[in-house]
């Protein structure tokens, strides 16, 4: 059989074709690999990471195109309940176990789309229910991310303080934003999770860091730690927070 194949008059063309395809294949892989190396965060005057986490759910912020007009079926009702219920539990847990929830870092593009839709829905909801606004923007953000989480998978992302009384959501956001700006991630990461613990003094400087939970991937840990250290100094602690320093658990997660 092989012989017949080799002798066939089309065989040279076949070989040529295979070679061509292989060449294309290899070059594609090669290019893909080159590109993947540590996706650089684009230069960004807004001091935010390019990763969308709906951290601040500002209507002015997120450029929602005209598409918003397209009303979506309000499937949210269900979703909302889903997100409302687990939240308090999570909070309690957080207080008990000294761990806090936050946003996750990276979303795959498909998820992102879903998320955007979710955001829209959420916004519409917000418009309909002004009562919701009593909760802070940060809480909204948390909820919002929760929604997308439940929609995508049930991962939680988080910042958590060792002082459960620390309630300044603007400060939490500023930490997350700043670290995210310095967080360079590679798509070569698989599912990884690391928790970095660090202490911020009153001036906002980092005075202590520790890898609380290693991801098992040395490079990932190193990058997480690097992102934290590069972010120093953070904003000075609020004046009405009277402790000498603030301990933060920061979770880096790659789904």
């Amino acid at each position, binding site marked *: 059989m092989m012989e017949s194949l080799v002798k066939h008059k089309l065989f040279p063309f076949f070989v040529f074709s295979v070679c061509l395809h292989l060449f294309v294949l290899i070059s594609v892989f090669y290019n893909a690999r080159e590109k993947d190396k540590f996706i650089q965060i684009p230069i960004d005057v807004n001091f935010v990471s390019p*990763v969308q986490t709906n951290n601040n759910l500002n209507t002015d912020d997120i450029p929602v195109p005209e598409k918003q007009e397209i009303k979506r079926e309000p499937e949210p009702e269900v979703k909302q309940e889903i997100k409302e219920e687990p939240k308090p539990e999570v909070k309690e847990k957080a207080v008990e176990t000294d761990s806090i929830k936050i946003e996750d870092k990276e979303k795959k593009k498909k998820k992102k789309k879903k998320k955007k839709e979710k955001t829209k829905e959420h916004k519409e909801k917000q418009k309909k229910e002004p009562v919701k*606004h009593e909760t802070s*923007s940060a809480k909204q953000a948390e909820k919002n991310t929760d929604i997308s989480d439940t929609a995508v998978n049930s991962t939680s992302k988080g910042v958590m303080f060792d002082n459960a009384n620390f309630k300044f*959501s603007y400060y939490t956001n500023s930490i997350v934003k700043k670290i995210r700006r310095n967080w360079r991630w590679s798509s070569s990461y698989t599912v990884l999770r690391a928790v970095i613990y660090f202490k911020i003094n009153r001036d906002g400087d980092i005075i202590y860091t520790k890898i609380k939970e290693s991801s098992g991937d040395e490079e990932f840990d190193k990058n997480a730690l690097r992102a934290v250290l590069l972010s120093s100094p953070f904003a000075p602690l609020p004046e009405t927070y009277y402790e000498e320093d603030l301990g933060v658990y920061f979770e880096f997660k790659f789904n």
Partner: protein
Amino acid sequence: MRKIWEFTLNSNLIKLKNFFVVLLIILFSSFTLSFADDDVYLSLSANSANRSGIGLADFVPVNGTFEEMETSKDFRDVLENDLILSRHFNVATANTSYKFDMNSHFSYWAQKNVSVILTGTVSVIELTKVVVTVKMYDVDSKQLIWEKKYLNTTTNYRVIAHQISDEIVKRFTGEPGIASSKIAFSNNNTRYKEIYVIDYDGYNLRRITKDNGINILPKWVPNSSQIIYTTYLYHNPDLFLIDISKNKRKALSTIQGLNAPSSFSPDGKTMVATLSRGAYPNLYLLDANGVVLRRLTQGKYIDTSPSFSPSGKEITFISDRAGYPQVYIMDIDGVNLRRLTAKGACDTPAWSPRGDMIVFTMKADRNYDIFIYDLPRTKLLRLTEDQGNNESPTWSADGRFIAFSSTRSGKSEIYIMGVDGSGVRKLADIPGSSFTPSWSN
């Protein structure tokens, strides 16, 4: 026999087909894989507008006099403008019908999607002094974040607003703001060239030199109110230093030949200047009093426009040793010379405060335009295009903005843009033509 042949052939062809199908699938999947990665990248950069919400409530006039109400309003406008120009925040303001009420206060602002509220009082004492107290609240927890009292003369209410804006930026980012910064430049409105200083927001223009001569190339001394510049006062391009707070000046370097400024090291102790000393203009390391410490470059080349890296260990400068002016980097001890650009005529490189970029002017086609060399990525980025000549870029202290001169309006004027080339604004409408801005820190 022939039949068998055909059969095997056919089956082989079928197998071939299968093989191709498999190949195609692999190819397709690999393509989608690589595209998927690109998509992540794109969607990442597309969603970068994420600013913090600040609610700017009223600053209540304590005594309710006419002066207080005016000052309070003016002060608030300056502060709002500062916060917007910082590009860190979305600033929300209250409706005119809004009345302060402690109970509904936080829920009112929470509706506006802000995370903190600014409020305070303004009082004018003896018509000449103004006291501003400012309070920043966390909307979520309703707790006070920060509170401070500022005192200044009534004419300086802008200074207070700038200081408050800087403090707020610090309390959000941990990095200092630039609202108190100033920009020095030279202007020819008097038919001569004189040095002027203006606030970063385009107010408070002051003329610094009054020689009726040629005073050019102003540069700020780091962390001070001093400017160095080149003057032809004594019919030679000499290097002078002027202290704008004390209004005093002194000669730094008056060696025969060109004495062009130059860049101070970040610690302000040394500077690199271009001195010709009757030969080719080369780079020299000078101490802060203008005494030559050592020569950095030599040869029959023109080396100019030095700029220190923020670490103080390297400088970037222009040299024509390639035959035409190009951007080079060199260690401060004169070794490790590297060339950055490959084409065009380059000028006035400036190292970014974060150290990762060098901005410079390059004549790539018809006009001079602003380019950035991204050091870690070794990439050249273009910031201006098809809008007259754009020259003399200078960094803001936080490395997020660039001021430059542009002839886009027909005459040379100073503009400010984001480091990505976005949000270009004219600094101010200043008579005459303005050149060579230098941004203080």
